[in-house]
């Protein structure tokens, strides 16, 4: 692998790429497999994720940080959503998967935990856009660039995500 890294930008970027490639390749695959449920597609998703990450190398302050890991996984999720859409020829709306790709905790001990659990229950494209907006603090413009959609679509999707979350919250309160 190292010989292929000879040409990637500066030495610093080369080192970042090497770390990210060796540290997250299988984790990206793991996430992709849980979402797409197909090993071949999941490998394609890993490749696509690196395609999206390479131009961002200069922006990674510390590839070993939790923030980098979060960003890598979030990028993988958005790649999977895109691949899922292409496969199912869906352009808009919520992307529901047969099963939720992750385990969701049953009980919450605070409002934050409760809403966090509900975010995890959202369709993946809604939870991903919420994470871009609220955990990374991206602007609509930056999210649009990340997801290759228009800013107006970002706003629409955020609104739908919020509304979906509110509905889940109403449902959760009704069951109390």
């Amino acid at each position, binding site marked *: 692998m190292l010989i292929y890294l000879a040409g990637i930008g500066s030495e610093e970027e080369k080192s970042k790429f090497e770390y990210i490639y060796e540290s997250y390749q299988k984790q990206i695959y793991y996430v992709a497999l849980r979402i797409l449920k197909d090993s071949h597609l999941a490998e394609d998703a890993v490749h696509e994720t690196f395609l999206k990450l390479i131009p961002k190398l200069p922006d990674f302050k510390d590839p070993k940080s939790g923030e980098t890991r979060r960003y890598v996984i979030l990028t993988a999720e958005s790649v999977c959503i895109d691949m899922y859409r292409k496969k199912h020829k869906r352009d808009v709306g919520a992307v529901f998967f047969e099963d939720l790709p992750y385990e969701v905790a049953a009980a919450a001990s605070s409002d934050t935990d409760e809403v966090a659990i509900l975010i*995890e229950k959202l369709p993946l494209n809604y939870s991903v856009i919420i994470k871009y907006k609220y955990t990374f603090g991206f602007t609509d413009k930056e999210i649009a660039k990340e997801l290759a959609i228009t800013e107006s679509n970002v706003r629409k999707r955020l609104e739908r995500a919020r509304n979906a979350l509110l509905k889940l919250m109403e449902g959760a309160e009704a069951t109390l």
Partner: protein
Amino acid sequence: MILTEELLRRAAVQAEINLLAQIPQENEIKHTFSKRYERKMRRLIRSQRRPPAVNTAIRVTKRTVLVLAAAVTLMLATVLGVGAWRARFFEMLQEVFEKYTEIRFEITDGGARAVSEFEIWIPAYIPDGYNLTASIEHPEIGFIMYEYSDAYNHFIVYCQNLPDAGVVQYNTENTGVIDVKVGENAGHYLATDGRDVVFWTNDSYFFDITTSLGEKETLRIAKSVTKKKS
């Protein structure tokens, strides 16, 4: 409970933490990536070795996308057949998939030519009305591209590559690849998306030409490709 921006922010962070906690560490995940994946990753990493000008040209010039053929649906690919032939310095393998044809180069025992030996070959014949509108010359990485256009925005794209164990793909959905002779060399012709492509190798290089001029004229240009006089 009221969904405030602050609550949403805290909850989003918590949701992210919950998710990441479920993903095992890298060394705990037992998966051996397929050869196809390894090959794609090598290609991806190699593409980063190109000077930015080349990558930019590849990105912005959609016409060259066909030549360099990046956009294919790999996930639906089914291998239909494999043919191989040998040249002096490298081996060219052609794999025909359902929707595209992949040309793969593997350096043989003779070894790759030193980059310093790279010699530029150019088409001696270009039809009337076409002028050189773009050129990329990077002999240091073994890549040459010339683009010629006419007044009606028809184009001819010529590429010369030094095969370095790389891969080129052509969209061959709903079309076939026809064997042709380019001078003394074995070549191939395909028509796809309204474009005519001829590709071939000589002892040292891989060439391809994309036009919208039909097989005969494209082949004529291909046959005129000769070593550039210094």
